[in-house]
């Protein structure tokens, strides 16, 4: 499961970790094949051959009174066939140089053994050294896939619960409030808040169009806080079943001429900011286009407050409405 590329991304790391975690979490017992077909040491090879064919198996442990004596595989049968010695007993051809594994060992132990040896199957013993099952690579793959499927179902359940959050909770007015502190000049994390809000909306069952419009509006507001404020500011998104109210506020320096700031192309951004692809004077214009209502209040004393509302019922929004 190791990544081929030397650079392991966070996402890869996440995936690997989950499978690796599972390989450590899952016990051999949980993935092994139980009720294994066993051979007696005195069985004749020809009978073993018939059994393999009938049961469609390619190997079987040889036991006596529950104790493991060896393993008979297809290769051992071929060996006997080559020597035209099918009348011999299983005992004569079985492999006795055995590598075994314990039922409560983590799956990763079996993976290591498969990697180190050339065995296709390992007998599984309990604490009293009795044979309780057999494990193959196929068993492990199935076990891991089943476990991942269980994880997936759990995630689906979370998603389902999130999207029914507002139906499950009864109140006069239910809302979910998300708050993010935005630091002045923090370009590296710029967009984190908008990404998280967009993800939350999708999880809550908002349409991709609504999530996208909210994301763009919040992203522009977030970049404004990073670029234009004295100390950064706060983003607050209140999600209700019928609307999303977003607010970006800071403590200064305030916008001198709000009407002018709303004009497309008007910008006070520095060249450095422009080099980053922002500050083209389109931010507020973009926001206005994305939301149903927008209100910008600013003063030198109290800083700037930007209110944005997006209604969830309306499919087509009116870009000209300003609250």
């Amino acid at each position, binding site marked *: 499961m190791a990544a081929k*590329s030397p650079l392991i991304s966070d996402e890869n790391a996440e995936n690997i970790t989950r499978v690796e975690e599972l390989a450590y979490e899952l016990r051999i017992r949980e993935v092994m094949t139980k009720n294994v077909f066993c051979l007696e040491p005195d069985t004749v090879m020809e009978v073993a051959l018939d059994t393999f064919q009938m049961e469609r198996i390619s190997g079987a442990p040889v036991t006596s009174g529950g104790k493991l004596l060896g393993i008979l595989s297809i290769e051992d049968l071929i060996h006997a066939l080559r020597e035209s010695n099918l009348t011999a007993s299983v005992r004569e051809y079985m492999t006795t140089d055995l590598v075994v594994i314990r039922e409560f060992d983590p799956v990763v132990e079996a993976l290591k053994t498969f990697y180190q040896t050339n065995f296709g199957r390992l007998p599984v013993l309990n604490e009293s050294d009795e044979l309780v099952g057999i494990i193959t690579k196929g068993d492990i793959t199935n076990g891991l896939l089943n476990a991942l499927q269980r994880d997936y179902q759990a995630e689906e359940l979370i998603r389902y619960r999130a999207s029914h959050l507002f139906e499950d909770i009864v109140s006069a007015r239910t809302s979910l409030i998300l708050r993010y502190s935005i630091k002045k000049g923090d370009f590296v994390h710029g967009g984190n808040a908008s990404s998280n809000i967009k993800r939350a909306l999708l999880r809550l069952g908002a349409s991709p169009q609504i999530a996208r419009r909210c994301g763009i509006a919040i992203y522009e507001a977030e970049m404004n806080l990073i670029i234009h404020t004295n100390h950064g500011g706060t983003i607050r998104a209140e999600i209700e079943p019928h609307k999303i109210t977003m607010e970006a506020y800071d403590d200064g320096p305030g916008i001198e001429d709000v009407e002018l700031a709303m004009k497309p192309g008007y910008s006070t951004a520095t060249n450095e900011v422009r080099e980053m692809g922002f500050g083209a004077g389109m931010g507020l214009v973009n926001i206005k286009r994305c939301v149903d209502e927008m209100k910008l209040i600013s003063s030198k004393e109290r800083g700037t407050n930007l209110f944005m509302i997006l209604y969830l019922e309306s499919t087509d929004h009116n870009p000209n409405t300003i609250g």
Partner: protein
Amino acid sequence: MEINELVKIIDGEILTDASLNGREVAGAMGADLMSDVLASIQPEAALLTGLCNPQVVRTAQIADIRAIIFVRGKHPAQETILLANEEDIPLITTRHGLFEACGLLYAAGLISLEVKTEEDCSSS
């Protein structure tokens, strides 16, 4: 257009880890101003740009962009690649310039996903 095909057309190099097999873009847009991108790009597009900071990836995630192509042989900083891997947005770099890369893709049948906006800057 399959992203793998797009990479061939512009003789690009893939910078992110995830496989591009079966992944497609519906069209493309070229721009260096992220506000322009946010204002006018339609979902499922490829973005051709000369801008290499993490903001490009953020913009892509917010605007549902399916692939980012850096032009003029630019290589973004490691933090941009890390973020792109995290957000699962493929990054591709090509030695062609913006005009040339756009032209090659347009000639290969890739459509523009830039919507016209009424606002312009003449009034400022």
